[in-house]
């Protein structure tokens, strides 16, 4: 079977190179392993030894060892420190310098700074010189060079050197000897997967070339994968998507090799790692030895967990996993001890438990199971370990013995031998030996210092283990260099993460670093590097590259990286939807809520009481769901507080005035016959009566001064309107003011009350007062949202009271009092002609109008009676003041509606505001901005 990652021709050229005795040098173990794997696939027949594909650092070490065999130069006797030992030595230097610093972190920084200096071919003389000429960085330059001098002195005294110093020594010695080490089988070398190696590496290879080691190149055919951009709501969702995608790929093709690339692997490793470990059940051909930290092995991890018994609290799950480790569970499984302990620890569902509580439980179980040796050993070891914790400084070996006892209790040797394959026990013993004999270590130290030393040693001890390779890998962009994938997902493609930010070495002067073009000092080159990494990923991925970014972090909007290719951004969300999510977020997620049609209920029972009058059919026309909720279920909105007299009370006041007035007057002739003084007197009396009546209901608002102001405002308003009334053709009062009317349809009876009915030339004119702007009327539409006046007309005709000749809205506005509506004789009503044209666009005759209304009203009534509960708002205005929005969930089904409604509100407000600019004098109790929005136009 061919490798899914490489073309056959690629592997042929690799085979050709290897057969010619050329070593292929790659940046890391993973890369070497992948190429070796592919080579096994390609060769098919068994191969006795690993192909000569090596990680560059290992190869350099090998070169050093070969030189040591040939020459007796004292430089070759030096021991090369690993990173942990190097940092320990730095720790000593910084501690002796007497700074009250964060020493561990500073030792790491110092180690990195010196490494950068050496790999970029600078030495302390450069640094000192830079410090002299650069005032700003003087302190850093002077201090760090004195530290580095001290570090070098210590290395010399101990006969040790750092990895980077070893590299420079190697170059120096090769230049001096002018010949390649004996026993170097390679005739040439080939670098593969390096983007931009440091100058020291380049110098080494140049030197090797001078000495006769030929340089070769290895180029694979660039891939042309499908590229996609996935936009996710959050980082968590990004990770979930990526891992789910990887799982799916593995299900479909177990031979695929998936890379998940993240610039911040620390934050993503946990979640992705869990997913991919679950999938790591696949076998691969070829034997590969993997190098990894002891801490990453379950036993090393267990050793670290044991050390945590020195703390006050422990993670419950971690203790639980320790008790269930393969080396302990067998011994504890007798009498189900591990289950009992696990249950006891986790029964309170606390994330952290006190260690003392754990010990107490161990002691209790020990009493009930005195014959379980493992339990007794564990119990005593933990107790002893904690007691020793309190002691002052001791020799390091004292503490190491102490830790060893604890480990022996938790990881019995016989069990390790039985359960851990691949001579792991030997590896473990080697580690312990190294721990006890390390050159760089504190002699006398406290418990805490010893603990730190051991922890670091576990993390830095690299074990070589034969295991199957993982088909899904989470890698940082630099770790991915040189690797090939069938599928690749690049996480966190946000502008804050890509281009990748690389910081310069903190302890070195910045100008010095810039001068020597050290990494992280030039933004343009960093950008170019990020571009190269992304380009490299595309070239080495055979099938598909997905880039993802999160649109939000917490509630903050995030932007995508400018390095993304110019492709459509797919919005995906496959996670569980929260129970209630704002429509705009749902829209962002590209997800819709499930919609289950539920459009009718039981028809209205004949015995049911109907309330609401004309508004019932108005609501039905506006939205069936609202009519059902409001009139059949009798839902009412919560009362809203308002300052001053509410709109409805204001409207009622005006109604009352006209009711009193037309109780006094009986006809237009009587109105015309009144002198100015008399009319004033009557109007004032009516206003006074009305105000008194309303004041009874609003005693706290209608105080004396307020009453006076209202009286003055209403007096002028009513007189002005009466001027309009005087211009009408003669009429007499057709019924009493506030006349009760009824309209019936099957078992539905609507009870209504007209404001005024006039009798003009033997026919009725129905008048309704309006004091503020309301929604436009649509009396010709099938869904009449303001059916009040047409219904009055129908009710009068239905009751056989007589013929109706018109329906009118009387606008009692200070700015422009007017009549609007439709009637047989528009000439009788000033300014009505225009209004009628507007309302009666189809030029229907009066009788045709009545028939039309009858039909439409019947349909609406029928729909209500049948229990229609569809959420079918007529337009965006329909939902503006609806109190049932949370129940009908229209906004969730149509997220744009909310914006449209807001726009409609805005528009209406502006028009209202525009009008109020002209009618400022009308308003004694000015409503606030927000009140206007809430209350809006109101029908008095």
């Amino acid at each position, binding site marked *: 079977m061919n490798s899914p990652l490489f073309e056959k021709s690629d592997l042929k050229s690799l085979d050709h190179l290897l057969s010619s005795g050329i070593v292929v040098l790659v940046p890391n173990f993973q890369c070497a392993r992948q190429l070796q794997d592919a080579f096994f696939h390609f060769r098919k027949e068994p191969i006795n030894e690993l192909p000569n594909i090596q990680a560059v650092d290992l190869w350099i070490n090998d070169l050093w060892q070969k030189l040591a065999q040939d020459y007796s130069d004292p430089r070759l006797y030096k021991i090369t420190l690993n990173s942990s030992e190097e940092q320990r030595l730095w720790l000593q230097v910084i501690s002796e310098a007497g700074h009250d*610093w964060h*020493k561990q972190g500073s030792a790491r920084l110092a180690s990195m700074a010196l490494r950068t200096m050496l790999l970029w071919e600078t030495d302390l003389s450069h640094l000192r010189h830079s410090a002299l000429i650069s005032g700003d960085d003087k302190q850093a330059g002077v201090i760090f060079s004195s530290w580095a001098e001290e570090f070098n002195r210590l290395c010399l005294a101990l006969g040790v050197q750092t990895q980077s110093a070893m590299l420079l020594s190697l170059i120096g010695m090769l230049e001096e000897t002018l010949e390649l080490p004996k026993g170097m089988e390679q005739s040439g070398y080939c670098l593969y997967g390096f983007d931009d190696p440091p100058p020291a590496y380049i110098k080494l290879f140049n030197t090797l070339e001078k000495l006769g080691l030929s340089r070769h190149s290895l180029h694979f055919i660039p891939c042309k994968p499908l590229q996609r951009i996935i936009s996710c709501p959050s980082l968590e969702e990004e990770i979930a998507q990526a891992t789910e995608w990887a799982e799916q790929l593995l299900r479909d093709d177990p031979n695929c090799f998936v890379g998940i690339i993240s610039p911040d692997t620390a934050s993503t490793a946990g979640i992705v790692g869990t997913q991919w470990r679950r999938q790591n059940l696949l076998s691969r051909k070829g034997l590969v030895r993997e190098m990894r930290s002891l801490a990453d092995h379950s036993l090393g991890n267990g050793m670290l967990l044991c050390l945590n018994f020195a*703390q006050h609290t422990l993670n419950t799950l971690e203790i639980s996993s320790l008790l269930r480790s393969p080396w302990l569970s067998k011994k504890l499984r007798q009498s189900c001890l591990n289950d009992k302990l696990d249950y006891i620890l986790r029964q309170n569902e606390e994330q952290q438990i*006190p260690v*003392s509580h754990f010990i107490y439980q161990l002691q209790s179980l020990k009493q009930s199971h005195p014959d379980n040796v493992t339990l007794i050993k564990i119990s005593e070891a933990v107790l002893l370990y904690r007691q020793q914790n*309190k002691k002052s400084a001791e020799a390091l070996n004292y503490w190491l013995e102490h830790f060893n006892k604890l480990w022996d209790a938790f990881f019995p040797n016989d069990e390790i031998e039985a359960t851990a394959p691949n001579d792991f026990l030997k590896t473990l013993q080697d580690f312990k030996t190294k721990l006890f004999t390390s050159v760089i270590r504190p002699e006398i130290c406290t418990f805490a210092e010893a603990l730190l030393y051991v922890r670091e040693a576990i993390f830095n001890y690299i074990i070589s283990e034969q295991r199957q390779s993982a088909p899904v890998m989470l890698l940082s962009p630099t770790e991915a260099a040189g690797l090939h994938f069938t599928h690749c997902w690049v996480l966190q493609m946000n502008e804050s993460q890509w281009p990748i930010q690389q910081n310069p070495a903190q302890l070195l002067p910045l100008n010095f670093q810039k001068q020597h073009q050290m990494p992280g000092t030039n933004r343009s080159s960093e950008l170019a590097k990020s571009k190269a990494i992304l380009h490299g990923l595309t070239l080495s991925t055979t099938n598909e590259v997905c880039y993802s970014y999160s649109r939000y972090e917490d509630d903050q909007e995030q*932007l995508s990286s*400018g390095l993304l290719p110019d492709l459509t951004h797919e919005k995906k969300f496959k996670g569980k939807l929260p129970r209630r999510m704002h429509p705009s977020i749902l829209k962002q997620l590209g997800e819709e809520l499930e919609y289950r049609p539920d459009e009718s209920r039981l028809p209205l029972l004949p015995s049911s009481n109907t309330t609401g009058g004309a508004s019932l059919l108005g609501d039905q026309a506006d939205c069936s769901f609202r009519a059902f909720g409001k009139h059949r279920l009798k839902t009412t909105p919560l009362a809203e507080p308002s300052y001053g007299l509410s709109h409805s009370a204001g409207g009622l006041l005006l109604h009352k005035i006209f009711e009193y007035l037309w109780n006094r007057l009986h006809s237009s002739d009587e109105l015309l016959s009144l002198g100015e003084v008399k009319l004033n007197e009557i109007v004032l009396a009516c206003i006074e009566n009305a105000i008194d009546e309303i004041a009874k209901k609003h005693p706290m608002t209608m105080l004396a001064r307020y009453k006076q102001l209202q009286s003055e405002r209403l007096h002028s308003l009513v007189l002005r309107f009466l001027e309009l009334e005087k211009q009408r053709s003669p009429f007499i009062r057709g019924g009493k003011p506030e006349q009760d009317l009824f309209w019936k349809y099957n078992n539905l009876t609507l009870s209504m009350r007209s404001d005024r009915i006039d009798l003009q030339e033997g026919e009725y004119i129905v008048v309704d007062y309006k004091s503020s702007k309301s929604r436009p009327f649509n009396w010709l539409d099938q869904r009449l949202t303001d059916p009040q006046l047409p219904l009055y007309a129908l009710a009068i005709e239905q009751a056989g009271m007589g013929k109706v000749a018109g329906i009118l809205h009387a606008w009692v506005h200070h700015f422009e009092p007017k009549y609007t509506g439709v009637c047989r004789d528009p000439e009788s009503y000033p300014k009505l002609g225009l209004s009628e044209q507007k309302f009666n666009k189809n030029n229907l005759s009066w009788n045709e109008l009545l028939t039309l209304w009858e039909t439409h009203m019947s349909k609406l009534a029928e729909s209500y009676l049948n229990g229609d509960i569809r959420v079918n708002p007529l337009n965006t205005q329909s939902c503006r003041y609806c109190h049932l929005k949370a129940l009908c969930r229209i906004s969730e089904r149509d997220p744009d509606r909310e914006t449209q409604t807001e726009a409609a509100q805005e528009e209406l407000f502006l028009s209202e505001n525009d009008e109020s600019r002209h009618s400022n004098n009308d308003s004694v109790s000015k409503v606030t901005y927000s009140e206007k929005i809430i209350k809006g136009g109101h029908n008095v």
Partner: protein
Amino acid sequence: MSEILPYDHKARQTALDPTQSFCVSAPAGSGKTELLTQRFLQLLCICSEPQNILAFTFTRKAATQMRTRILHALFKAKDFLSAHGSNYQSALEQVEDHKKKTLILAISVLDRNEKLGWELMSNSARLRINTIDSFNAWLTSRLPFAAGFGARPKLEADLSTLYSETIQDLLEEMEQKTMASSNTEAKIQRENRVEMGLAETL
């Protein structure tokens, strides 16, 4: 498109003068961030490197908002230029007054971005818009000697665990001094009680 200029139009224009310093005090929603965005764009028009300009906010939310606004302004300007080409001046007349200023500044920044090769659109990390806390953290990491920290200690948002550990250490120390050795079980129970009591107190 001409519209009525806000009464503080002149003050807003003056606040964009990069040769002077200003303190802008205005109510919420009055356009302070917009003004700051404009000033940032104005400064980008004259600086040699984008990272030479530093914008502080007090919250991460504001920093993100500010950053987003500047980038949006640049992207909008880019779209505007590609839509109208070299004759964009006449199209500018159609833009509303309050948006025009930002657009003009963003167009100038794009020009400078092109000339100096900043690649701001793909390398927006060059815009230094930070919270004051993140700036301080950055500063201490850049000046390890002057700050006296060495490596910057990890910032801990929740200190309750540290308080708890400190008090427990203190009590243990006191116990060791005052109490003679006692049987193990009693000691464990005492330790439990102390921890539980403290946990409640904390």
